[in-house]
């Protein structure tokens, strides 16, 4: 699925927008999310998941070809943690016990 297909879905399912307007609003959704994450703030979309900016300390990595140690500088990275609802949608045939075992933390 591409952004163009998401725009089509908004155009067809929400209705009342021209294609151009649907495109503008969908762009605004992702642009807003980008701006917020660039500020280091997290985004929680209930039913979908959380986008979290994490600060990583400097650490020593290795050149996998030569084995030579190289410092990896401190940086901020973005991670996505899917919600339990989304995980359940992807695994519809799992039993309740399996869900509960995962909710206790074995899955992530």
């Amino acid at each position, binding site marked *: 699925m591409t952004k163009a297909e*998401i725009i089509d879905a908004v155009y067809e399912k929400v209705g009342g927008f021209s294609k151009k307007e649907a495109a503008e609003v969908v762009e605004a959704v992702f642009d807003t999310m980008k701006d917020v994450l660039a500020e280091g703030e997290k985004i929680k979309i209930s039913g979908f998941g959380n986008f979290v900016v994490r600060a990583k300390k400097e650490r020593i990595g290795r050149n996998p070809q030569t084995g030579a140690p190289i410092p990896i500088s401190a940086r901020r990275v*973005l991670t996505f943690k899917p919600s339990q609802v989304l995980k359940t949608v*992807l695994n519809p045939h799992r039993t309740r016990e399996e869900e509960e075992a995962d909710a206790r933390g074995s899955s992530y």
Partner: protein
Amino acid sequence: MTKSELIDAVAQRTKITKSRAEQVVNCVFNSMTAALENGEGIEIRGFGSFTVRHYKSYHGRNPRTGKPVPVPEKRLPFFKVGKELKELVNGGVSEPGE
């Protein structure tokens, strides 16, 4: 930021009503959820991509009791941040060696 705050921000930014913005935001995430449910990946240029990863069943352990527990096979969504957003999050700096 929560989903309702995202809806408010989108309404302000595009000058549409909150209820219209809510319909759009819900439609966006519902479409994305449906794609992932069908095992389809999602690619949003400049933002990132989502893929569905399949994990085989394995024997795990209850970390508290040490008791072995079978973990059934499962599918999990995986997000890979796009280059542009990766740099934005890191203060506009692209890191060498990636």
